[in-house]
């Protein structure tokens, strides 16, 4: 599903953000990217949704090279990728419903179908009762669930999350993790960048550790689960 071949990226000549990354993520996999701040987690995610192009190497998604996609093609790549952020990026003037509906409006869905699908997704997130509220009236956990609803409402093939629980307490972290897992069970490939060790330990999923722009270690779920248990 996702393949990175020898991918390097330098913002400036002497500032390498990623260096010779080789990574393969299978369809339906759930992967955590972790590492200290500045390790390149966010940069790697941004490569995957076309916000950045690599300086060297190839980024393949579904067998298609998206490394240097023309600007006009990037929207079509993003329609199959859901993205969530630590700061949620919800529109403060729009209601919960409208925030989630954007994704389907972009795809050209009719209004009646948007209504049904958004309601269904918000129900899955336990947010159906907040449908008419604006984001300012929601807690951090609720806002992240709305952001997740927006990312998942069109059943994307890939879900990318950048520090999705950075602003949340433990109870909310668990809820968000469960939503990731459910999306993953439905067939969505999930890639979560986080340095939240507790989240990683709870999830029991594959772990990719980055440091200074390089992959320094990869662990299958059994390995690091056992490690933390021990």
């Amino acid at each position: 599903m996702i393949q990175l071949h020898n991918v390097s990226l330098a913002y400036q000549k002497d500032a390498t953000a990623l260096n010779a990354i080789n990574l393969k993520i299978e369809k339906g996999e759930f992967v955590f990217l972790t590492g200290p701040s500045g390790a390149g987690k966010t940069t790697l995610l941004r490569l995957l949704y076309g916000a950045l192009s690599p300086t060297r190497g190839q980024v393949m998604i579904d067998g298609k090279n998206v490394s240097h996609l023309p600007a006009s093609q990037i929207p079509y790549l993003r329609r199959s990728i859901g993205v969530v952020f630590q700061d949620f990026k919800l529109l403060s003037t729009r209601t919960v419903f409208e925030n989630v509906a954007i994704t389907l409006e972009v795809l050209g869905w009719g209004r009646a179908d948007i209504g049904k699908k958004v309601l269904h997704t918000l129900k899955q997130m336990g947010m159906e009762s907040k449908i008419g509220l604006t984001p300012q009236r929601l807690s951090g956990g609720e806002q992240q669930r709305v952001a997740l609803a927006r990312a998942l409402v069109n059943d994307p093939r890939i879900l990318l999350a950048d520090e999705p629980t950075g602003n949340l307490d433990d109870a909310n972290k668990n809820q968000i993790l469960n939503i990731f897992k459910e999306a993953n069970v439905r067939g969505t490939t999930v890639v979560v960048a986080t340095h939240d060790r507790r989240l990683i330990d709870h999830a029991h999923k594959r772990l990719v550790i980055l440091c200074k722009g390089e992959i320094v270690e990869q662990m299958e779920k059994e390995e690091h689960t056992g490690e933390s248990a021990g």
Partner: protein
Amino acid sequence: MNRWKKKNIPANRPAKRPTLSGEGFGGRFGYFFYRAFVNIRQNVFVNAVTIGTITLALLIVSLFLLVFVNLENASEKWSERVQVTVYFDRELSAQEQATFNKNISSIPGTSRVGYVSRDEALKRFKGRLRGQETLLDGVRPEILPTSFEIALKRDNRDTQGVENYVAALKRVPGIKEVQYGEEWVRRFNTMLNFMRLVGALLGGFLVVAVLFIVSNTIKLTIYARRDELEVMSLVGATRFFIKAPFLIEGIIQGAGGALIAMLLLLALYEGFLHNAGSFLTFNPTTAGLAFLPPEYVGGIILSGIALGFIGSLSSLKRFISV
């Protein structure tokens, strides 16, 4: 209660798009308008600021235009005094009058030709000396010349135009003495050109200032909504899809601002017309002050629309990365 307990989770089905609201610009047109109106409702303050700025800007420009148009009208009336007179020292027969009339009328630039007989000339002379007619006692019409008074078309009333016309007039057989008040024509045209130059300079400065203020206001209002652009881009909206509602908003803001500016201008004009008599020495209702002609009003509304559209377009370019 844990609402996240194990559920029977259905697998993702292939991307389904049940009822499409239409592809391309035509199909989405309704959506773009709907979105633009909803955006205006949801961003009332930002839109009010933009419309207010456009209104004020266009009001200043149209006020200036109103003054300029009325000055032009006044100068047009004064320029009707630019008149060429051909003198004869004898009374012309009816046939001669007709021949001269025909020859003079055929010169390009002639607007009106009128013959002034000796009797008519004396009558006018007396008219000017009203109250002191006795001074002309004993004066006989024969001492006065006869003449043709020629009014010129608008384009021939400047100094060069009058000189060219007089040169052509002198080529008409039988015409020798021509007068046209060279000094007055020269001064009048100098004044007119000066007024136009000052008007163009002031107008130019005003337009540049207005463009600067409006484009920066629109830029700021779009900057305030850059999150919206980012989110739209993240969920896979094409540039056109992101821009279209903003551009429609720009057009609505421009048209709204221009309409309000025109209504305010009309109110100011009517208010001036009906109240200025009490503090000015002339009565504006009888001075022939006119409102802007319809084509100017149309032009200002179109400028407002263009201002909103182009302002939004150039600002969006700056804020939409992919």
